[in-house]
Each structure stands twice: as C-alpha cells, then as structure tokens.
C-alpha cells in the first residue's frame, strides 16, 4: 500500500494540507494535538504512515518528541502561526495550502492520499480549537 517515498514529515504536512480545506486553525494545546496523533497512530490502518512517531507515556498525555519537532519546524518555516497573546490556536497560513498540496501529489499515491484524507478528517475533528481560556 505504502509507496514509501515520503517521510513522516510529509505525512504531517499532507494531513495539515487537507485540514486547511475544513478549518483555518487547529488547537495549539499540546495534549490535544499529541493525543489526536496518538489515537491515529494506534490504528493498524494508519500505522504505516505514523510508525516513526514514538510517544512518551510518563505524563498526563502521550507526547511525541518527533511530532513536537515537526510542529516547531512548521512554525519556523512560517507555515503555522501561533498568535499572541493567547497562543491557543495554530493558524494554518494560506501559502501552506498550495505548497503542501503540491507536495502531497508529488509524494503520495492516490490510495495513500485517500488514507490521508481520512486521517485529516479525524485529526481536524479532534483538534478543533476552543476559545481562549485566559
């Protein structure tokens, strides 16, 4: 099934590129984001895509250092933006959409893109932002 020409980084980008069709922002809460990916990674169907993520279980919520690195990298690259003063939402910047969707088509087969679409729907639902708590 998996063409294997991609990295986990491409998978996360592809998921976010799909998410942007449905929402312009996702929660920036660490437990919410990592919990959503963890739930996907547990499922056999999605394991081939998310196998490289390891999740620490010592705290209140599963935490993946790899996923954390990817989110920070996306922020540094200017694709995600976490805005002052609340820092409760990641805004997916519009330039990301075309850029990532182009990459998705380059790296994934149609079958893989369909799987990613399912993952993205689930991820978008689980990470829908809530209002600032401060």
């Amino acid at each position, binding site marked *: 099934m998996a063409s294997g020409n991609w990295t986990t980084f491409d998978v996360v980008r592809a998921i976010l590129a799909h998410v942007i069709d449905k929402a312009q922002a996702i929660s920036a809460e660490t437990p919410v984001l990592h919990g959503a990916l963890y739930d996907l990674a547990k499922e056999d169907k999605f394991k081939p895509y998310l196998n490289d993520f390891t999740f620490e279980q010592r705290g209140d919520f599963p935490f993946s250092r790899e996923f954390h690195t990817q989110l920070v990298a996306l922020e540094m690259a200017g694709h995600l933006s976490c805005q002052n003063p609340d820092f409760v939402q990641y805004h997916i910047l519009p330039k990301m959409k075309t850029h990532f969707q182009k990459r998705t088509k380059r790296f994934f087969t149609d079958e893989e893109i369909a799987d990613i679409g399912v993952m993205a729907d689930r991820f978008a639902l689980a990470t829908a932002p809530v209002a600032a708590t*401060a």
Partner: protein
Amino acid sequence: MADTLVADGDPTHDQIREQIECFLKEYIPPDMPPYEVGTTKVIHDGLWGTVLLHSWELCFLDTPLFQRLRQIHQTGLAYLVYPSATHSRLEHTLGVMHNVQRLFEAITKAKNQKSLGRPDPYRLAALFHDVGHGIFSHASEQVYGNLTSASVFGTKRPHEALSELILSSNQFQAYAAKVADKHKVRIDVETLGRWIVGSAAKDESERFMREIINGPFDSDKLDYLFRDSHFTGLRLSVDLDRLWYTVRIRKAKGHFRLVVLQSGATPLEQILFSKMMLLITVYHHHKVRACDCMFDGIIEYMHEHNISYEIRGMHLNFRSPVDFLWLTDNDLYSLGFRTPKDEKLHDLIHNLYFRRLLKRAVILSRRMVNEDEGDNDLGPLLEFASPGQRSALKRRQLAREIYDKAKPPDCLPQEVWLDLPEMPSTKAADETYVLPTQHGVPVPLKHFFPAGKWPEQYGITRWRGHVFCPEHCRDKVAKATMEVLREKYSIHLKKDAFLECKVKVPR
C-alpha cells in the same frame, strides 16, 4: 569475561543487562564501608551549604559506583566554553538530595490531603538518580542514545534508563539488601527506579511521590537550574522560598500530585524561563555544541576504524550504552596521551583536550533563509532535529555529502558536522497545576498565562543549527553546504548565514 561483551553486532537487552552486572562487579565492593548504625556525616556544598547524610546513604556514596561521578562534569564539555563550569555529577547529586529534603519539609509543614511518609526513599532516589551517567554526561548520552542497542530503552531518557537498569541489577539489589538489613531501613529499589525514569505505577493515584524526583518542579531541576547557572556565571533567579511556602499535595485529574497555591505561580514561571534560558545560552551555545560534535567524532572514528578502548581487561567498542559507563572524563584524554598508534585519533582527542575547537561554517535558522527564493522552507531539514537514531543518521549522511562535495584538505569526515539541536519544549507546563484557592480544584498553570508557549516561542526564535568544520576549510565547507541545501531542499541561504560565521559568502 571481557570477550563475551565484545559482540560483533549490537548487544541485545539481555546482553546489556549482563554488561551492567559485569560493570557492577568492578564498581560495587564485596563489603560495605564500616559505618556504624546511626552515623551521620555533614558535607559542605558550595551552593546550598550543609548537606546531612545518613549512615545508609554513606554506604552507597562511598562505593566506586558513586565516587566515579566526581570525575564526570555535570555540564559535559561546557567547561571548555564556560571555564568555571567544572562542577561534577556528584555535587549535583548531593544538591538534589538537599532539595529533596527541603521539598519534603515544605510539603510536610503544609496542610495536605496526603502524607509523604518518611523522607528516606526520596533521598535515596535523589542519590541514585544520576548513577547511570557516563563520560561527559549528556554529551555521551547524545551518542549512545542514538546507538541501535539503545532502542531497548524505548522512550525513557537513556541515562535514566541506565540508572534504572543499575538499580534493578542483581548486584545492586544484593548490596542494597545488605545495607537495608544492617541499617534497618527499607530500600525498595524497584520503586526508586520507577521514580527516576518517571514511569507510572499500576496505581498512580499517588503521583506526587515520583514528582518529587521526576516532575514539573522536581528536586533535580531545582538543583541543576541553580548549579548550572551559578557555575556558568549566568544570572538566573527562582524564588525558592516562595515555592517552599506554597507547595501542596492535592488531587488533580485523578491523581494526588504536587501543586502550588496561586501565589506560588511566579516561581513556576521562573523555572520555565530559566530552563529555556539555560538551554539557549549554555547547553545549545554553538561552541558547546561544537565540543559535543567533536566528542561524537572521536567515537565515530573509533567505530569506523574498529578501535577499542582497553580498561580493566575490557575491550570497549562503544557499541553498547554500558561501555560509556566505564569511562570518566579524563579517561578519554588519557587515551589521547597513551595510544599514539593512531595519529588521527590522537589528534581528534588532543583537539578537544587543548580546545582547538571546530568552527562554524554556516548558521541555519529562520532568519538565515532567503524568503524570496526557493521554497523558503527549512522544514524538511529541521525534521532531522528530531531525537533518535533515524534523524542522527540523516544528519550524518548530509554532513558526509557536504564533506564529499567540499573535499576539504587535511580534514577527516569526523570533523564535519551538521548540528541541529532538538527543538525546545515546555511540555511540563501542561502538567503543572496551581491551586486558585485553598479549597478549590487545581487547574493547569497555563490557565493563568501561556506558561509553555511564551518560553517556547522564545526558544524557537533563538534556535540555531550549524555546520561545523576545522577553521582552515570553512570556506570550502560553507560553499558545499550552500550547494547541497539548494540542490536537495531548495533552501537558499542569506549572506548572514555565512557572514556571522566570519566566512566568505560563497558564489
């Protein structure tokens, strides 16, 4: 004995356990030191003052296993950049014991929903928590943590996993039983090991116990923040008195855990900011990172040339994390002086010893990418900043490509490094709870202010990766890096990426 440990491939989990037993044969004496029951000793610590130790604690402290920590720098190779940062793992260990006692007394004084029991197990966990550190502390951890054999540690921090393995060994358990029997104390090494790695027990209702050793404001953190900042000369401040005054045990999210009153939130914020400041200023200082790469280069050279290190009849090939326990910091330097058989290895070690450090050829950060050209996307490269063996291998492959393209004269592949420090994280902020009123329900600190995101954003802004190489070939390596990044990742670097390294801007 030694031969069984020099495996052709990487050691399995069972072999690692066997290696630990072998290591402990040398480091735990057959007889206990003859401390009488009830003996106490006072040690004066430069940072905290008087630290009192009980007879059973001295029985551990006086073993070679713990005394070796005197010869391991707490901040690894950072002393080559901050000359006064020569404090040892042993000093830190005693400091953690001191802070455990202070934290214990503070909690005991307050009105709590739970009792802590006696301080002894927490003090012992503090004493044991860093026993798994090897040569140059975290500098070697970064190396052995990426070995295939380290995958048996899972998501545990490698040095903590080694501490746990030592505690669960037959020899340590036998020694602990002897000490417990003579001094009439209870030593449950399994529980102490679990606290050290921060694993949850089956019944996690009493999480506060492990949080004293491994939690959002544990005694380990409280010591290293003060000690590392003091000895590097960095002026950081945490209001510990306020923290002691406001700490409580309360139930939050199903667990009894350490929380602070709302009036104690400020020291928690100070802890988060101080951690980030130390990370950026000391642990990720580019010269410190260059030193770490040089150490990594020495081990890589030994791997590639099948050079082993002989010590006490052992032939260490550094394919197992346990091999790094056998050495303390000066052992590596002595190898440079006493084995001139391989001149290149001799040079690599002497370069570190005499502080002939690698230099920066390129800086990688968001500010250094040219937004007008290419994909303006450091992302695919930053993916290799992830922890773990896969990313480490990718970084080495890329550095080797840069090396091959640059063809630098008089330079080994082990002297060209792509260094991408792990991204800063303030996950602890999500697990730090504050009690808004004495009888209220604890809420996460982030409900009061973005405790995690503010310091994290600061860390992201200050984050920098580098390409290091010897000074004489910086121009060639800079040019090769520019070309490799452009061809492979469409990354176009700005002039500042080179100019800030005092390197000629490549054309």
